[in-house]
């Protein structure tokens, strides 16, 4: 296609915790430094920096991209913040890809950070303000409502039960036991999920990922530079992103068409014709357990309405035909929104290099995908990575 090739050459991540002692700047620094160290670079080697972080309301700082700049390594460098709600973490390397594939930079540092714990009385409260200020906020909605509404529609449309969906939470929290950053890894059963507190039917407490603090970072390099830095570059072969209308109540919530639109864009670029066969391992966003299924279908990794059945059959386990969320996902590792998406990108990066330790999926995967979702059931961001 004639486009400049770009690779991920290094990565860094902090633990994901409910409440970190570190400030947002310090978390960003920890992840960035680890990423630079992992490929033997110093800050002087970095041409440009881009930071992804979700609502300013969490950290409690207006223009929080400016506040976090020094922690992200942006001192006197070309620096920007990018933001697409929950889709940010997977959009982060895409925004970084623009920097390098355009020829404007050879080395771009990509950072994602979230400090949700600053928001009191509870980070949930910040989500009131994502709803339309005039036509929706007076009803005092919470984010869980919109997920519950979507989950119910999805269940009803395809005849899926809560037990079917709960399997995702069991799988991911179990997978997360092998992830060193994990906040809420544990061995649970479907019964545990169904017995956990009903928050907004059909959503129970164990269906949801927690609020978290955390940061992650990756280093992107142009081909020439990448080959000097590592013998295992992971290539960004496809990027895709799409946003649907803000009038979310006018859309069919049973299917995330915006994820399909984003996926098609990424698959086209990567030359993927049959995603279910050509993608070896995938990290779709799983802030709620049913979302993993919803997104699998939007990514066209299985037919609509089939994701739950395949999960029950073990298709998506680490040793299954198409491992989904081998990291443990948001449900198991934690959900510091922007950092979660980048954590998933890092998981694919490690899987393709054979460096995922106990989480490594068998079969030497060479093509993987990470996806995130955001906003009012609106935003899809997809990245396709390959090692070749």
């Amino acid at each position, binding site marked *: *296609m*004639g*486009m*400049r090739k770009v690779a991920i050459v290094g990565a860094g991540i902090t633990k994901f915790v409910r409440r970190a002692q570190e400030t947002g700047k310090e978390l960003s620094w920890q992840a960035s430094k680890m990423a630079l160290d992992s490929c033997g670079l110093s800050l002087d080697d970095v041409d440009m920096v881009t930071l992804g972080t*979700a*609502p*300013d*309301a969490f950290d*409690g*700082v*207006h*223009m929080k*991209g*400016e*506040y976090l*700049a*020094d922690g992200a390594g*942006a*001192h*006197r*460098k*070309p*620096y*920007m*913040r*990018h*933001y*697409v*709600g929950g889709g940010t973490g997977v*959009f982060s390397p895409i*925004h970084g*890809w*623009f*920097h390098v*594939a*355009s020829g*404007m930079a050879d080395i771009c540092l990509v950072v994602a950070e979230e400090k949700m714990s600053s928001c009191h009385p509870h980070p949930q409260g*910040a*989500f009131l*303000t*994502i*709803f*339309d200020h005039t036509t929706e906020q007076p009803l005092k909605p919470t984010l869980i409502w919109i997920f519950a509404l979507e989950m119910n529609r999805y269940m009803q449309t395809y005849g899926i039960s809560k037990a079917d969906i709960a399997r995702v939470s069991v799988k991911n929290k179990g997978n997360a036991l092998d992830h060193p950053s994990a906040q809420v890894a544990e061995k649970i059963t479907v019964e545990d999920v169904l017995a956990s507190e009903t928050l907004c039917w059909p959503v129970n407490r164990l269906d949801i990922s927690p609020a978290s603090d955390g940061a992650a970072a990756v280093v992107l390099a142009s081909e020439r530079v990448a080959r000097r830095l590592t013998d295992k570059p992971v290539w960004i072969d496809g*990027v895709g*992103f*799409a*946003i*649907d*209308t*803000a*009038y979310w109540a006018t859309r069919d919530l049973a299917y995330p*068409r915006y994820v399909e*639109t*984003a996926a098609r*864009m990424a698959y086209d670029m990567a030359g993927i014709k049959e995603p279910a066969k050509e993608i070896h391992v995938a990290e779709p966003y799983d802030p709620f357990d049913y979302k993993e299924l919803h997104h699998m279908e939007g990514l066209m990794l299985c037919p609509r309405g089939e994701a739950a059945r395949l999960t029950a059959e073990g298709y998506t386990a680490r040793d299954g035909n198409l491992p989904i969320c081998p990291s443990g996902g948001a449900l198991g590792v934690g959900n510091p929104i922007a950092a979660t998406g980048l954590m998933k990108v890092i998981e694919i990066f490690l899987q393709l290099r054979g460096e995922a330790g106990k989480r490594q999926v068998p079969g030497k995967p060479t093509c993987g995908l990470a996806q995130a979702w*955001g*906003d*009012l059931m*609106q*935003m899809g961001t997809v990245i396709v990575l390959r090692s070749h």
Partner: protein
Amino acid sequence: MVKRVGIVGIGTTGFRPITPDVSYREMIFEAARKAYTDAGIEPSEIGGFITAAEDFLEGYSIADEYCPDQIGAVLKPTQTIPGDFIQALATGYMMIMTGAFKTVAIEAHSKASNVKNIDELMGFAFDPVYNRPLRETPHAIAGLEMTRYMFETCTSAEQCAKVVVKNKANAMRNPYAAFGAEISERDVMNSEAISLPLHRLDIAPHADGAVVAVLADGETALALTDMPIWIEGLGWCTDTPTLEMRDWGEAAYARIAAEMAYKMAGIANPAGMIDFAEICDEYSYKELQHMEALKLARPGEAAHLLESGATSFAGDIPINVSGGALGVGHLFEASGAHKILELVEQLRGEAGARQIPDVNIGLAQVWRGVPTATGAVAILSNM
């Protein structure tokens, strides 16, 4: 391989102190519809969309949720850059240079009139541990900087006041401007003391309005219009956010961003090659400080150039012929949008009463305001 990126369409609502008749959606739709008609392209044909917006200025979280409908971006690749329009423009430029996008639309707007306590909002950007507890007006940071700049360059407050006089007078010729006026230096010095040496009239009042621009790769640009306005140079830079680490006299972020843009544009002698400029004058002294950082004046020389008339409408290097922020209104993330609009109209010969004759290369520069040390530069040409 993409070699150049040009602006092929631009649209605006103009800028007013308040806009109570329209919602932000309706305001942005007007600018977008005009831009797409100007470009001769429908949004369904446009490859990508970018909005420059900050949550707290909008008053809701996740600003990009509410952007697609009014810019025609439903189910299209869309992102928010919480930064100035020129940073969003830089992202659009990079997107096209990757070869994966032929066209990108950029949007920014201000509805600052809807924020009830804008000073408190500006203060909310300050470091919560070290700076906010002091409960100073955010303008105090600019006051500190102004004092240091005046000291290092032997510039007086009266000379800074002349920036206000020039720019508000320029704005009288600009139908888009909200705050054109014929005032004197004395009016500025007599206006209410805000954070000395800053007086009320030294500070650009905020305005509402929206701008949308359409970028295209070279081949597409030439197919769409006879006069694409080319992006010759871009630069953006963030200096330390920590106030306690600042060099208060120099606008280093502007110097470094300009160096990057000049290098890209192949400009070795800015003062000689830049025909006109729209630079940030959110506070009166900033125009002078930025002139020096951009190397359009030597250190300490900016005030003299201003007084000599070199930066007036008829001068050698007209600066802020639109009226700048002082005359047009401060537009927050849309600051760069207005400056790019001015550059495009001047370079196309569409600037009406404020048209500068025979211009080929223009420079736009923005600063993101207190407490940031972030700025961006764009250099455009019609050649």
